[in-house]
């Protein structure tokens, strides 16, 4: 296990180094001088040069890359060109919305998919199975931002159950939660549809195995064999999908935040793009990529923990 962990850690570090290099280079070739952008088109060249020096933009590229990486490791992401505040503070501020939203959506999609997948597998080939599979097929095809618009139209504007957009902050936790319900539902639906299908097919595969027949022969009821025996083994592929879904959830959250005018990471990154606040774009993208790589790493480890065969493959 120690060797497996070491190899995984090394490849994690290598992935982070290469990813950060790619992001840094992409932003580096972007046309437009941030110092000139901050000062406006009429600024004197000396002023621009002075600001460039102050921001460290006149230093060699390699040094700036090392500065950026070193800063990120210390939690110092630099200063936003437009907001004039530390990027780390901006990100932390926005994460207070985006992280609970992603967690809520992940929880919701699991809460929908688990019973739906179990039910469909138990009623395989019958009407209930067909209904769940048909609905999930539809759930996969619906773009989440369109579903979000329909939710706003019906649940917020027509029934007035939830706010149509905006975020009141966490000073009143209930009001904050209420503002995140519709976005979380919109995010969770397509994920739940995929998860339910994966769980169903994994369960059906497990149900055909010998140990299930043994369990049934020893007197385990059908539901008990399904939940106590098959579900445990079927959770392995579900775990993998859950890990992979994380990156879709992040991307989805960026889009959904736009539908509900939520001041999260997604809004921050789009504002930063239009304002050419490249240090914010660079840092947020690196953070997103880091999150995806870290989740993949944790999923790999969890996978190896439940399935010993994987550990020995290295």
């Amino acid at each position, binding site marked *: 296990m120690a060797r497996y962990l070491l190899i995984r850690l090394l*490849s994690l570090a*290598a*992935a982070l180094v*290469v*990813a950060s290099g790619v*992001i840094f280079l*992409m*932003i580096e*070739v*972007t046309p437009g001088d941030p110092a000139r952008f901050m000062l406006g088109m009429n600024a004197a060249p000396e002023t621009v040069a002075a600001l460039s020096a102050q921001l460290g933009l006149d230093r060699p590229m390699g040094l700036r890359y090392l500065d950026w990486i070193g800063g990120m490791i210390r939690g110092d992401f630099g200063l936003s060109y437009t907001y004039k505040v530390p990027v780390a503070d901006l990100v932390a501020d926005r994460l207070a919305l985006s992280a609970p939203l992603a967690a809520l959506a992940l929880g919701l999609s699991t809460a929908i998919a688990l019973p739906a997948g179990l039910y469909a597998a138990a009623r395989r080939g019958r009407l209930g199975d067909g209904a769940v*599979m048909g609905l999930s*097929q*539809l759930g*996969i*095809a*619906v*773009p989440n*931002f*369109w579903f979000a*618009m*329909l939710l*706003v*139209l019906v649940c917020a*504007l027509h029934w007035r159950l939830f706010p149509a957009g905006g975020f009141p902050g966490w000073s009143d936790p209930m009001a904050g939660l209420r503002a995140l319900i519709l976005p979380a539902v919109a995010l969770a639906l397509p994920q739940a549809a995929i998860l339910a*299908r*994966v769980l*169903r*097919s994994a369960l*059906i595969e497990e149900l055909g195995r010998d140990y299930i027949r043994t369990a049934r022969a020893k007197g385990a009821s059908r539901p008990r064999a399904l939940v106590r025996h098959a579900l445990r083994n079927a959770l392995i592929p579900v775990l993998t999908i859950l890990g992979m879904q994380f*990156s*879709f959830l*992040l*991307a989805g959250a*960026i*889009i959904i935040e*736009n*539908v509900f005018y939520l001041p999260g990471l997604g809004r921050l*990154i*789009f504002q930063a*793009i239009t304002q050419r606040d*490249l240090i914010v*774009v660079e840092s947020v*993208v690196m953070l*997103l*990529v880091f999150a*995806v*790589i870290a989740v*993949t790493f944790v999923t790999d480890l969890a996978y190896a923990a439940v399935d010993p065969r994987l550990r020995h493959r290295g």
Partner: protein
Amino acid sequence: MRPALILGAVLSLTALAAALVSLVWTPWDPTAMTISARLQGPSAAHWAGTDHFGRDILSMLMAGARTSLAVALVAVGIGVGLGVPLGLTAAAHRGSWLDELIMRGNDLIFAFPALVIAILITATFGPSATNAILAIGIFNIPVFARVARAGALSLWTLDFIRAARVAGKGRARISAEHILPNIANLLIVQGTIQFSLGILAEAGLSYVGLGAQPPTASWGRMLAEAQTMVTLAPHVALFPGLAIVFTVLGLNLLGDGLRDALDPRLRGRVT
């Protein structure tokens, strides 16, 4: 024939037909604005109504189909064109440093969701449909590389491949002549799935302004423009959304149906 496969084929072909017909004919000019006819509901003159500029929504939907299908198709082309050779090479040199390098490179691209690639490209070069194609295409590369490698690995152990090796054929030639035709089914099914995902991704990118720019018609941008109009005229948001749902649903059903038809062992399995 299964009904799901037929439904999938009909829905997919409808979208394709709309896109092709829009090349030569649309009921109205999709870019022509008639302010006096703005936000009209469906009628005999405008089957799907008009938007806030008085443009004919049906014509915009047809032109939008062209954008969606073209972006998704080229993105699949990029994924197949680069991913399949990479996957075949990795499988042909299984366990070697080349295999390791290709697969770790794949993992790395996987860490960049299509939206993040699009954000990076847009921050650098500005938004356009070409950038959307690139972003989705790059995301497709590791998907096809993995499918091709997995499919090829199981074939390399079979007798007819060994026979080809003994006959003196090189790895690259065996990959092209014997492996590729045998994994074509897998690639077709994966292609259908990535095609439908590409349509969803294109809509999402255009919706947030990272994809096709005006005056190019796009389903995602139609929805973005409809957002503030949705209480006044729900049909403005309804039809583009339905167009996406039916096209993606059609392609998914087609993909499932093709998989069952091409590989009887998988019949009834859903993933």
